């Protein structure tokens, strides 16, 4: 069935199994039990997030466990985002269209 944040409670068995499988699949290990527990929580949160994206999507996409399932949004944004463009493009604007390739 679907795992959502509400009904996770103490970590259910299948969540732990899923997390073990994730660790094997993407070669993840954590130095301390505390870190492991924290990453498990983040993993559960991301599963719930994936469920929400699934409900929001109008296409045929599938969301779920990926190599980033143990990262928070902040960590993911720091590692894989493209921060500077978020502020827009200073003074660049549109330059040419295909039918005027002579301009550049």
């Amino acid at each position, binding site marked *: 069935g679907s795992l959502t944040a509400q009904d996770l409670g103490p970590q259910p068995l299948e969540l732990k199994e899923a997390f073990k499988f994730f660790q094997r699949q*993407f070669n993840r290990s954590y130095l301390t039990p505390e870190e492991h527990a924290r990453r498990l929580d983040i993993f559960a949160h*991301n599963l719930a*997030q*994936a469920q929400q*994206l699934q409900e*929001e*999507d*109008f*296409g*045929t*996409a*599938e*969301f*779920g*466990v*990926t*190599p*980033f*399932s143990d*990262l928070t*949004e902040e960590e*993911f*944004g*720091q*590692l*894989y*985002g*493209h*921060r*500077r*463009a*978020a502020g827009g*493009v200073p003074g*660049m604007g*549109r*330059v*040419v*269209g*295909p039918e005027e*390739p*002579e301009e*550049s």
Partner: protein
Amino acid sequence: VPHTCDWRKVAGAISSIRNQGNCNCCWAMAAAGNIEALWGINFLKFVNVSVQELLDCGRCGNGCYGGYVWEAFLTVLNNSGVASERDYPFRANFRPHRCHAKTSNKVAWIQDFIFLPDNEQRIAQYLATYGPITVTINMKYLKLYQKGVIKASPTTCDPQFVDHSVLLVGFGSDKSEGMGAETVSSPSRHPRSTPYWILKNSWGAQWGEEGYFRLHRGSNTCGITKYPVTARVQKPNVKPQLSCPP
């Protein structure tokens, strides 16, 4: 515009999926992929160009904190070309004053770069005729994406807030069972066609559809039409030797 186009089917034209690791250099990897693909389909020269040179020699500096695709093109223009990945390998970090473009052998260069109109039909036409294009999108849906065609609304994926640069390498339509919006007038079940873009990411081949992902085509999903920009390696209007396979 052909119905489908997939530059990945031209052997060697699209270089293998990269992994930016701990360095926010999607902009440099998208630009490098663009230049590699254009050299492949225009000159049948299949090269891997140096992302690290784009990072080290960019005017903005510290491209591991993010950057712009057009900055990468300007770097290649300023240096009159770019070295190979082999000669100037990727290190996933940035050090100031480490640029050694002057001593490296150039394996590719560009004539200039252009922005395309924010029109998906025109983008598809250009892509099919001249080759892959870099685009910058809102990456909200990508972190937990596994496969399939992402179709988001502007409220769930703001097309004005774009924060990730990738390479557009093709387009097609996905036939799947179910009632599509176009068929609402005839409730009987029959195949629904979902037009999509094929995009090359730089998060490794374990992510998505072997490193690629698909976005719905025709609805400016996640802002794909905001900054379509591509280098040019030939004089204007000169068509490549190869055309996009269906």
